[in-house]
């Protein structure tokens, strides 16, 4: 589904050029939960951004279903193929939880309106939560709403950047359970970037990154 081929990514800073990725090769398939671990600055989030089409590699290619991502309409790719979850949730504070969930539907101009209540239930929330502004929800609830928003896009790829970073253990386990279920039951390709060994342990495939390279696969 996703193939990362010899990808490098450099960016300039005042101190000089930073080589965030140094020739990464990866192959990811649907129906599995992948975990990418590594220390801060190892290039995990950069790799995720390139896979989401939010940036383009300095060299190398990211293929999605055999198509070079750099040569496609990346906005459309994100609308149709990718759902993303962030550590900071990135919910719009002026909207209710339900409206946040419907954002991907509104932006993606999808014909079928998703069942918001079903989505809320799927992430362990109720319609009561849907009526609340995101700022009125707890961290765990906000992250569930973010997951629901990612699911609402009905995209085959789910990319999660530290989705449990701000959550307690119980909430973290719940979130991972949801992601695992989405991979196994819905056949999605779920990629989770995390520091947590516990969460990484739940993944079907685990990659470890260091200094911009994939060092190991379990």
């Amino acid at each position, binding site marked *: 589904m996703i193939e990362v081929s010899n990808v490098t990514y450099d960016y300039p800073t005042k101190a000089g050029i930073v080589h965030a990725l140094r020739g990464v090769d990866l192959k990811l398939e649907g129906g599995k939960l992948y975990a990418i671990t590594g220390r801060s600055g190892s290039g995990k989030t950069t790799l995720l951004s390139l896979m*989401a089409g*939010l940036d383009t590699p300095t060299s190398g290619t990211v293929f999605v279903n055999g198509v070079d991502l750099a040569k496609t309409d990346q906005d459309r790719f994100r609308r149709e193929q990718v759902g993303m979850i962030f550590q900071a949730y990135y919910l719009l504070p*002026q909207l209710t939880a339900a409206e946040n969930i419907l*954002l991907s539907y*509104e*932006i993606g101009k999808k014909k079928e309106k998703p069942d918001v209540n079903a989505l809320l239930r799927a992430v362990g929330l109720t319609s009561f939560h849907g009526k609340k502004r995101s700022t009125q929800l707890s961290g765990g609830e906000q992250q569930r709403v973010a997951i629901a928003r990612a699911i609402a896009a009905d995209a085959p790829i789910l990319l999660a950047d530290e989705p449990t970073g701000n959550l307690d253990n119980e909430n973290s386990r719940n979130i991972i359970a949801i992601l695992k279920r989405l991979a196994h039951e819905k056949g999605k390709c779920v990629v989770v970037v995390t520091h947590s060994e516990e969460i990484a342990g739940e993944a079907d495939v685990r990659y470890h990154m260091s200094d911009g390279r994939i060092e190991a696969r379990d």
Partner: protein
Amino acid sequence: MKVFFHFVFRNVIRRPLRSFLCFFIALLTALVMIVCQTISQRVESALTDLEKNYPAVATITRRAVISPDGVKIPSSRYLTVDEAYPLSQSGSVKAWNITLPAGSLAQEELMGKLPDEEFLAEPPREVISVDDRVSVQAVNNLVLTEAFYSGESKIVEGRLFTSEEMRGGTRAIILSRNTARRYGLALGDKVTFDFENSGSFSLYRVVGIYESGKGTELCYIPLEDYFRDLCMLWPTGAHLDSVAARPDRVIRLDFLLTSPESGEVFIRDAQSLGFDLSAFDININDGAYFAVKDGLEGILLLSRIVFFSVLTVGTVILALIIWFFSSSGKNERTVLRVLGMKSAKISAMFASEYVLIMIAALSAALLSGGAVSDSALHFVERCALEEAVEEANAQEDLSERTNREIILKRKIHLSLIDGYEGLVGEVHAVSNHLEEGKIGVRREIFWSQSGAMTLLGMTDFAVDGFENTASFERDILSESGKLSGYYFRCYVPENSPYRVGEIIPLMPQKMGEALVFTGDLANGLYRGVLISSGLVVSGIYPPEAHIGEEFVLPMKELELMCEYLSISSEKYRSVRYD
């Protein structure tokens, strides 16, 4: 597009703090700018009106010297019309007026002018006298008279005077509609006026009829015609001395300037024309104008400073607010990008939110701007302009009190609010001049005798000639002086209504030449020729039975008169006393 606007409207409503701050600052900025702009426009309009309508008058008077004991002694040198005329041709002069002392005459060369041959050869088709309901005014520019300038009077038939008519000699007249109706006159008809005590007639052709909103019945004739025809018929001083030719003595000249700013040009013109500024004072009455103008310019400057200050400060504050909320909206941009919205669309959406708020603020400012501007204008008018106008009017009052001989007082009415009328200037002649000489200054109006020229009632009297007074053995009780020109001395009985110096229109018994309507005193119709001569009562004698109440005149005078009138002594009823 629907989704786009849905997002825009939703964000504007759901982010009330940002929307309110932007709206409030934009509204405040726009409102202040509208108010300032309105004030600037009104003030500019008022300034234009002030310059256009302010009746700036340059007054030339004899220079006075203050004696050691504080008595004001005017220079013995008088102005003459000849001296004044070149100045009247200055480009800075719109109109001019003359004040003469009572009894003065124009210069000698004007004295002898008589109606031309055509006039005598072709009696008028219709002749009318002027009664006490009609006033005649001589003008040098009819359009600039107060009645026409203000729009109160308008020509409804015919036309205004042509430039040729204004040069004099063609004798044109413009009548009011009421006057025309009353006398059954139409365009092309000819009118003859008989002037009070002058005993002379002048023929004028009706070239225009006007209608007056106030029912004014003034008749207008060109000023030059007045000079040519009527100055010589000015022996209204009731003294034979005054009839004697002597130079005109102008005590005061008023020049209505084209604009208050042209005062300096006028003085330069006067100097270049060699006008003797050592003997005469030129006072330009523009103090009130400059006082009000300074006030208006102060308001204008302030409103412009406020306008640009508020524009700058408002823009900076708005930019800061937008910058602040844009940086806090970075997360939103990320979310929307991740969800697949194009960057350009996100930027356009954010921009549209601010545009929407600005449109709302601007609309509110425009809607409320009128009311706020009116309030602001009232405030400015009350706090700044009224003060300037009052100060200017007070200056006028002060000037009038300190120098009554010079100042033409004007009261300034200036409003920023009521219809941009700007200014209604009034020039009042100093009253003592009017009273003193019964000739005075009004706007665009030259001499008028008591405001009207009225027909003297004519008496059907007989005229007798005599060689000397001793021949009929009666003493002349009084005799003032000798006459010149086409007036003939006569003596009247003591019980006649005439007094020394009065002029009796001469009506020889040559009938059928024309129909003359006389005034109320005449009490009826007379038939006779038109003449430009008369008898001047030169003396009064006591009544005597064998003479009766006849008027008598020296035989030589009688013969001269008959010769002048081309009538033989046979046709003229006279009794010779030897």
